[in-house]
């Protein structure tokens, strides 16, 4: 059980049956008056934002969240299936819930899946992933047009801007937090 004194950015609580992440928090106490605890929370399943104000004495249930390493198996329609390699238990996640993570997932790669009870609500990716470029224009040597980047498609289907010298078949490092090209993997 949490009290208002535990409220801070990053705290995860259960509200109306859903897990919420506190994304903004402020303590206000106008003119010797009663303290108010202002929060902005994000629903960890559907991403909606909620403003709530609490007073001293109110309590919250923690969100019982668990992170488990799982293998990404396959995608069918808008469902992504993951498997716990220890228990062979499978969980399914909706494309909407996956967010940007879907751009960086290759079949059989291992990721941390966030579980709220039985429900998979998110994927924690490493900050950097290596993906192969499957399609990009050839760089015309002596191109003086001044373009310092060009579009490229990687094996997950994700399209990003890369430097002109990157060629099809090359392995590149992508920063999953920004979705941007980071560097080229040599060799």
């Amino acid at each position, binding site marked *: 059980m949490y009290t208002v*004194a535990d409220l801070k950015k990053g705290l995860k609580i259960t509200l109306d049956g859903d897990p919420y992440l506190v994304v903004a*928090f402020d*303590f*206000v106490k*106008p*003119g*010797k*008056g009663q*303290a*108010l605890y202002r929060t902005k929370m994000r629903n960890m399943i559907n991403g909606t934002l909620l403003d709530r104000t609490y007073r001293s004495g109110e309590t919250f249930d923690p969100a019982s969240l668990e992170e488990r390493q799982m293998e990404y198996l396959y995608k069918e329609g808008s469902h992504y299936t993951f498997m716990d390699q220890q228990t062979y238990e499978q969980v399914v996640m909706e494309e909407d819930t996956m967010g940007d993570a879907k751009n960086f997932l290759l079949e059989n790669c291992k990721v941390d899946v966030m579980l709220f009870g039985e429900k998979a609500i998110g994927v924690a990716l490493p900050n950097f992933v290596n993906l192969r470029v499957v399609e990009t224009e050839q760089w015309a040597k002596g191109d003086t047009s001044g373009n310092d980047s060009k579009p490229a498609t990687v094996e997950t289907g994700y399209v990003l801007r890369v430097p002109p010298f990157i060629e099809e078949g090359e392995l590149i490092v992508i920063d999953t937090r920004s979705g941007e090209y980071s560097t080229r993997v040599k060799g």
Partner: protein
Amino acid sequence: MKSDALWLRAHIIRAIRDFFWKRGFLEVETPLLIPANAPEEHINPVTPLPWQLQTSPEICMKRLLCKGHQRLFQISHCWRAQERGSRHLSEFTMLEWYRADSDYRSLMSDCEGLLQHVAAVCIPDNPVYRNKTEIVDPFKSWMSISVQEAFLRFGQREVSDCLREGLYEEILTANVEPALAAFDSPVILMDYPAELASLARTKPGNPELAERFELYLGGLELANGFSELNDPLEQRRRFEEANRLRLENGNAPLTLPEPFLRDLSDMPPSAGIALGVDRLVMLAAGADSIDEVVAFTPEEL
């Protein structure tokens, strides 16, 4: 005489400050309440219980008024438990000043003079205060509005109804303070309902209202001042009422400051005010968080 020694003491502190200022030393304030001191064989730290860290120096300042001092100021650390946010620190720095034979109006002009002085001396290139995106010019003519009028105008509610329904803080912070932020001069919110002023005198001829005001700059509450209550019986009754409400809210009642109550009948009609120094620095620096203007936050200790 004690009062001579206090004047000498004040001169010495000022001389010490001048000495180091002239030699390029930075005067700092680090927290007084810390989790651990350097262990020493023969030095034992004070762990205050059953005493308390002051929440304001007001009790002692007013006892000095009772002893005949006319004008007093103090910059000191104060502590208030469980107060932490972008504008609150549990340990913070307060400026308090008191005037004998005065009422709250004299404090309003002090505020005006002080804020103009600080801006002119400390931020001469652009002598304005900033809170978030608001810019407040202390040299423009100051706005003042009564609490009652502010609730009506900005919250479309009677303040007395809000108090009865327990919505006072909500309407104040959600409607009134944001509206005060829109003024480009400092704003004085004045004449509080009597129940919101435990140490202030009520207005002559109107026991419903207290001679109390709060100073706002860009919607940020900076100072709280009032005409002081100097009736010991009424003061005792209010303290006991506060303790009754504390108990009702599940908080332990607090010991009454008996020596203060004993001295209070010697206090001339006076006025006193507390101004948050950290917040003044925030406003002068245009800082969004109090964390930016202190040497250490409690989390760093």
